[in-house]
């Protein structure tokens, strides 16, 4: 789960599909996360890879009254 600088929330699967990198340790900006070992980039909003690798799963997420809600059952 990522907290953006504009305080938005995003969630994607933890592991980068091509090489098993840990996305939580990656660089983020408002659009994407970059996986540390091999620099594959994924869109935070839908998990789509912009550097030619398979996508990761992304999950809708929001905050309400101090509670974070994440939906795991969303169809892709």
């Amino acid at each position, binding site marked *: 789960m990522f907290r953006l*600088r504009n305080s938005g929330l995003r969630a994607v699967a*933890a*592991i980068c599909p091509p*090489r*098993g990198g*840990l*996305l*939580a*340790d*990656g*660089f*983020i*900006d*408002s*659009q*994407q*996360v*970059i996986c*540390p*070992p*091999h*620099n*594959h*980039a994924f869109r935070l909003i839908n998990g789509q890879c912009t*550097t*030619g690798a398979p996508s990761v799963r992304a999950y809708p997420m929001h905050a309400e009254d101090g509670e974070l809600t994440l939906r795991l059952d969303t169809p892709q």
Partner: protein
Amino acid sequence: MRELVVIGNGMVGARAVEEILARGGGVMFRITMFGDEPYGNYNRILLSELLARGTDPDEDPLDADLLLNPRQWYGDNGITLHAGVRVVRIDRFAHRVYADDGSIVRYDKLVLATGSRPYFPPMEGLWADDKTLTPGVFGFRTLHDTMAMMRYARGKQRAAVIGGGLLGLEAARGLQAHGLAVHVVHAAQGLMNQQLDAQAGLVLRRSLERLGMSVHTGVRTTGVRCSRDGAVTGVNFADGATLDVDMVVVAAGIRPNIGLAMVSGLETQRGIVVDDQLRSVDDDDIYAVGECVQHRGEVYGLVGPLWEQAAVLADHITGTDPAAAYHGSRLATKLKVAGVDVAAMGLKEPERPDDEFVQFSEPCRGIYQTVIIRDGVLVGATLLGDVSKVASLTQAFDRRVPLPEERIRLLFDIGVPPPETGVAELADEAQVCNCNGVSKDQLVACVRDGQRTVEGVMAVTRAGKGCGSCEDLVADIVTAALGEVLQEDPTANYYVPCIPMDKPQLIAAIRKRGLRSVSAVFAALTEDGAEHAGSKMALASLLKVIWNEQYIDERDARFINDRVHANIQRDGTFSVVPQVVGGVTSPAQLRRIADVAERYHIPMLKITGGQRIDLLGVRKEDLPNVWADLDMPSGYAYGKSFRTVKTCVGSDFCRFGLGDSTQLGIDIERRYQGLESPAKMKLAVSGCPRNCAESYVKDVGIVAIEGGRWEIYVGGAAGANVRKGDLLATVQQREQAITLTGRFMQYYRENANWLERSYDFVPRIGLPELQAILVKDRDGIAGRLDEAMQQSIDAYHDPWQEHRHPATEGQFRDALPLVELPKVPAR
């Protein structure tokens, strides 16, 4: 909108307008163009090819190959084109131009791109009247000339070409293709004497004679003979000899068209005199560009320099870069002259007594090659018949890279394997990028899918994004696949892709606006104020170099390694490398490392190439405790930073040691530990030239030599690339070695591109330049560099002290708490 008038619709006039449009000039200016010739803009360079092709002269020759800008282009871009109309006068005070069709156009800015015209030397019988050449006599400049020549050549037997320069030889070759016997008549002794020395001229002459041309050199043409009906029948020479021919082409040079500028009161000498912004020295509203221009005494006729001029003009006139300046061009050209390959750059002959001159001549095969070297720099080269070395020579000429000590290696591969397989021969499935497993056909497919730049293909396929050693090959394959449609990525020169500035511009902007954090840089300098993940690490490093302790650290701008001060491994664990200065350790240190390894079940302990001990497979949450128990400073084996100084045993124990390399290495590592830099810096100090610490292949390598002196090498590498470092200086005192090491590293920190290792940086800047700046202090910045380095040293804190006070909550929390780590079993 302001009015922009361009006089001249040739290649450079139209190119200048294209450059202006590319900089948003279409919104700033209403553009009017005047051109002598009644077409859009065509590629004059291809006229010789058109002539040689032997096209049917009654067909429309303006096909897509020849035409650069069709009429429609002008309409599409809102340009008013007056084709076939000549401007006769400029009223600079009323800001108006007057044309020969009676039209008057007002301008705010005026561009003169009037080009040049053929020069006709005085010859009896050359002219039929004041304006018309004798029938059968031609210049060779325009499409009209070319078509007329081809029409006239039908059924003719013999032609004389007056002038044995580039254009004359092209004309001669072209006329041969139409079945004529061609005589080249050249007033000077050597063919192409503008570009070639006498020897080269002779070799070229033999090659042309083998192609069936008759060549007369050292012969001045004094007259043209005509029949009674006025058509050419022959030429007369100064020595009384004559030659019977059916047609004559005069290609005896060109003269800039400066008449209009002259009558309009602008300073003209050989050309229209302009300043570094391509403005007439008399009038800030009038620019001039192309062959009609004289800049710092030089008039250029080759297309490369003229393109450079057009770009500077566009930068300045649109205000895109008010500081844009043209400083003149170094001439390097590669041509096919009448079917013979010719490349020439810089000087054609040595000029000073101590110029080095390497010459190779093999006239039977039509091969002649020379290089001229002055003060270790390539200042001239000529290649005739075999131009296989033109790429590396051009690079040496343009970038002043260091030259091989055996100069002959500039021209020949001696004792090395044959050149690598060409791109075309490479099998489709061959793996090109061995780091990311990308094959040739994947690169080609990526181009087919629409990528148009080398950078774009690399970003999508990841090719060349590993160790980087295949970058050149990737670029070659992509370039070949793209063919004509290759586009240059403008971001290639940017320090980071999201800010359109190179490194010096970016540093100036950051200082001027006092931007002390990465988020502040994004907000102030990117187009949309948005942050950009891929640029954060490069900016964080640069800001630290600029501001030192005033830098405002933001943890999200750090790469994971810099957030937790350890090197992330493939299974998500980390490696910990404590500092072992100079590679010298102690029983107490070893005992502590051993204890920690047992306590935290470290799967692998490894001696590194940098003479340290690596603890591999450490879990993230164990990092603070591991550091606390080790109680050793960070060895910085994870950052884009100063890493380590490898040393040999020096003079205390070694029988051969000439200097105390061990202590010098320790002192250097203590002083410069952990400093951020554009890429990692690995150093070494060896106690003698046996070089046991591998100093010759380090970013900075120091070697003790007899007499208590120290040699300092820079730019060495023994990784994905292997390169011996260049000898920057030899110093008497160890303190000088320490200072100069720091000065070089500071200059590198300030000037190298992101991830540019010293083995690329040093050849890019050039060793003589580095010596001038760092050793001789030519620019007077040595003191400032030393001071800036001292500030960085003073701002250093050991990051492993964060085990006491984590910088953020969860700094060392595992990202995958449910997965058992480490994945790698203990050996």
